[in-house]
């Protein structure tokens, strides 16, 4: 018994967010005994199925070694030209995020920057932060770029093309800012020989790319369960271990987030002013993201914001991810994986956030 308690304590300490959400769910039940009965509806099973399908496909792609080889090739080709290398890393990380989610892209590109930092022997704090800002910003380009986009895409029943077209002006504004920021980064050329490649698992890479494409197409057609089946079948047949590598506690975290913030939205409906204009929706989403992170903010607001305001909601949630460290899970990965501290992160991120929010507000006002 004591051993079980010790194991549970260790697990709870390791999975802090899951534990907090689980405790919150249990606490909510006496306040509303109908919650367990309504949980399945609050989960929005179709939206959740699309999210799980994408996380399976994205994990398969990451494990295949394909993104790591692409990143490593950048380093091999450009290691003698630091300015170009830094810009390419930042932009490639953001472009990858649009296809494989922001968190997965971070797990590929942050270790690459760590390697560059090691061979240069100089700190690259600015580059680390720009990689995080890039995956948060450029992932807004596609409905499969991050969890809040998947949620909005599915919740409002948009097509992938409609989503991408709606977000394009804001993504381009973010891209412009990133180019300006990266142009300011300087460093010495690396003198180490080119790095050897990581083994490429070709069947897994092909299956995962096909699964990502399938999720985008089937998700747009409202066939979310079929998308999930396809992703599991393709990745599972290519390499069964890749299915086991899908982050199960993270899936549970998303399920509880959907349920609890969906419920919070219902309870708060009479207390929160429902945004009436695009500007209000964007600012509310960006602001709320600073307090509770952008995925919970999106779930909470999507139940209140009408369909005609999905673009400002998506823009606010995505721009909000580039603000305070709490704005996005990707920022927390940056702080845990590297030696960048919160203060250094904010020194780079907050001016960027202010500029991107201003540019987005201007685009909204013009549009």
């Amino acid at each position, binding site marked *: 018994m004591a*051993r079980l308690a*010790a194991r549970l304590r*260790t697990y709870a300490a*390791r999975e802090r967010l899951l534990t907090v959400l689980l405790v919150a769910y249990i606490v909510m039940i006496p306040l509303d005994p109908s919650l367990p009965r309504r949980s399945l509806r609050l989960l929005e099973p179709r939206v959740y199925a699309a999210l799980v399908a994408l996380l399976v496909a994205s994990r398969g792609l*990451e*494990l295949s*070694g394909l993104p*790591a*080889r692409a*990143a*490593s090739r950048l*380093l091999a080709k450009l290691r003698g030209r630091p300015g170009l290398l830094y810009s390419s890393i930042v932009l490639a990380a953001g472009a990858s995020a649009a296809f494989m989610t922001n*968190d997965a892209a971070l*797990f*590929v590109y*942050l*270790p*690459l920057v*760590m*390697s560059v930092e*090691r*061979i240069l022997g100089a700190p690259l704090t600015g580059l680390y932060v720009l990689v995080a800002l890039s995956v948060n910003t450029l992932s807004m380009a596609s409905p499969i770029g991050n969890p809040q986009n998947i949620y909005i895409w599915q919740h409002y029943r948009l097509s992938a093309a409609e989503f991408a077209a709606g977000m394009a002006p804001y993504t381009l504004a973010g891209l412009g800012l990133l180019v300006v920021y990266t142009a300011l980064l300087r460093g010495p050329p690396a003198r*180490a*020989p*080119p*790095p*050897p*490649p*990581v*083994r*490429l698992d070709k069947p897994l890479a092909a299956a995962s790319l096909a699964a990502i494409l399938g999720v985008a197409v089937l998700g747009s057609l409202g066939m979310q369960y079929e998308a999930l089946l396809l992703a599991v079948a393709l990745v599972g047949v290519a390499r069964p*271990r890749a299915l086991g*590598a899908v*982050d199960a*506690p*993270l899936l549970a975290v998303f399920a509880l987030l959907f349920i609890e913030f969906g419920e919070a939205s219902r309870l708060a409906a009479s207390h929160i002013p429902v945004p009436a204009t695009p500007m209000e929706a964007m600012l509310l989403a960006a602001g709320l993201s600073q307090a509770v992170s952008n995925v919970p903010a999106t779930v909470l607001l999507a139940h209140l914001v009408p369909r005609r305001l999905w673009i400002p909601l998506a823009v606010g949630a995505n721009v909000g991810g580039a603000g305070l460290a709490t704005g996005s899970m990707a920022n927390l*990965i940056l702080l*845990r*994986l590297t*030696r960048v501290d919160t203060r250094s992160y904010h020194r780079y991120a907050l001016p960027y956030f202010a500029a991107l929010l201003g540019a987005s507000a201007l685009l909204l006002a013009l549009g």
Partner: protein
Amino acid sequence: MAAASRAVETARRALPYVVVGPPIIHRGPAGDVHVDLPLIYQGFALDRIHYDPVSRSPSPKGRPVHAMLRDVDPSSIAGEAEAILGELRVLDAAEYRGPEAAWAVPVAWRSFIVAHIKVSGDGGEIVPDYGLTEEVRRLVG
């Protein structure tokens, strides 16, 4: 055995790009603490170095240290991990592992082996430790 030489050369070229991931701290039922330092290459874990939190140095591969300590601060290990990394060197021989169709190239710290870097059978590509990669990912994600 040109592939063996090639595998050693590949491991040697990879080593400058290897970084140390977040320390993995296991706590045993008897209150003992066991620390591993994962070696990370291009986002994949390659192997773990056993770390002795009392002597603050690596322990030979195959001899993990179970220290009776109340707690270990991961941030305090980071500086030492960097120093250890700087002293690693790839040895000039490789062992072939049939089931994995890969070469295991030993990596030494001072006088003993602390880890292996696995390289594909043709000697050209780094082979990750997928299980350890998952373990590290769970620590961070």
